[in-house]
């Protein structure tokens, strides 16, 4: 066996890595548009599934154009944002906005309730969190939210479809929820995931979990926003605000629950103004 000098080994590995990297980036760049198309088609199929329209990859676009008559992006103050296409809103960014808002809100609340800190503040100068500044930040983040809405016309009924995105156990989960025109009753829901455990968390993708959402209500009797809970240990079918969680998939189930709550509460004004 030949022996090679260290310099040779370094040069060899560097050249190899550069060649491989260049090759893979060229491939990724050239196949990118096709892959994006596939993802877009899948999104359309998911939206169609949430309003109970069956579709295949081939006729997804045609059916989408037929049933989804309108789609727009609104901000939480109900204004339509011009020049935004609902299908192209980056939900990942929206999720990180939600997370930031939740974190900031928590920090404001913590200032109120920590008796230890208020006691200690007499001795040590804590760096004061300027409450007003934080609230301004929250308000700014909230005003930057983009909320896509898809309007579906099917058999003389109107449905509204909202996209969802949140965290599962191993990676992101996402989905769509369709509401009837009373903005309260769930018409259909569809979920998907990147890498949940097969047989456990991955079951959120299955019809038998998704069909439970049909007919549930997101507002309670006092017309306050409630969302739909995913109840561990099971719940009555008559419970209008809860569905059975998946045994063994608790974290994913909880992820679905907080995804529904976090995403839908931003639409609160929209729902209330459009309710009958």
């Amino acid at each position, binding site marked *: 066996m030949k022996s090679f000098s260290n310099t040779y*080994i370094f040069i060899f590995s560097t050249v190899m*890595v550069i060649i*491989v990297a260049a090759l893979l980036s060229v491939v990724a760049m050239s196949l990118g548009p096709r892959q994006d198309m596939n993802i877009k088609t899948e999104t359309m199929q998911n939206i169609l599934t949430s309003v109970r329209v069956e579709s295949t990859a081939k006729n997804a676009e045609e059916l989408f154009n037929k049933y989804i008559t309108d789609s727009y992006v609104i901000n939480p103050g109900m204004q339509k944002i011009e020049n935004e296409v609902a299908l192209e809103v980056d939900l990942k960014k929206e999720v990180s906005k939600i997370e930031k808002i939740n974190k900031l809100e928590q920090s404001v609340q913590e200032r109120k309730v920590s008796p230890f800190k208020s006691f200690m503040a007499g001795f040590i100068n804590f760096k004061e969190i300027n409450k007003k500044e934080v609230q301004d930040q929250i308000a700014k983040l909230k005003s930057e939210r983009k909320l896509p809405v898809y309007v579906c016309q099917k058999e003389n009924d109107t449905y509204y479809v909202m996209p969802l995105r949140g965290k599962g156990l191993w990676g992101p989960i996402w989905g769509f929820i369709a509401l009837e025109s009373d903005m309260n009753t769930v018409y259909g829901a569809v979920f998907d995931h990147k890498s949940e455990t097969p047989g456990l968390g991955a079951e959120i993708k299955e019809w038998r979990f998704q069909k439970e959402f049909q007919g549930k209500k997101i507002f309670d009797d006092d017309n306050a926003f409630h969302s739909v809970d995913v109840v561990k240990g099971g719940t009555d079918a008559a419970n209008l605000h809860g569905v059975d969680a998946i045994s063994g998939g608790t974290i994913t189930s909880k992820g679905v629950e907080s995804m529904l709550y976090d995403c839908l509460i931003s639409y609160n004004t929209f729902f209330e103004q459009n309710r009958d």
Partner: protein
Amino acid sequence: MSDKEPLFSSRNLKLLRDPMGANNPITVQVLGICSALAVTVKLKPSIVMALSVIAVTAFSNVIISLIRNYIPPRIRIIVQLTVIAAMVILVDQILKAFAYDVSKQLSVFVGLIITNCIIMGRLEAFAMGNRPWPSFLDGIGNGAGYGVILIIVAFFRELLGSGTVYGYPIVEKLGIENFGYVNNGLMILPPMALITVGIIIWIQRGRNEELIDVS
């Protein structure tokens, strides 16, 4: 090995044939079992998986064989891994672009071809010491040997578990369900893949006495 050796000499053909039978990577060497359990619920993903593995083994064999005299022995495993990983990412990207639904079904298992011991085993045992053409045949042979078992297992699991063959509802069309036949849900679960592989091994060793382990 002379330069004048014909492309399909008996020795080269043996490279192709052996892994299909007496030296099968799954049933004889017992390699790559993990993915064989995971992707064989339906015929279609198994066929795609088999083709992907054939492509990866064949081309990484050729590449390693081409540069085998320039690879420093001290980092050869890393070099092999880099080549395999690059090939697998290529396959994965192509699947995502042209067979999106299948690539979703195979999910992580395409990525896990990288860790499939068949491929690294062939690189280390064969491609490091042979010319590109025999290495190519060896890669095709071993990939196909793996694929054949995958497809056989998937055929039985899909037929008995879901009552379909390549998505065609054969049990329903034959009308056996009228006589009280029910699909066996257990076939869909991974343990039954192991048992099916076991039955294949049993049949193969029953027919070929050389394979029987006396010890």
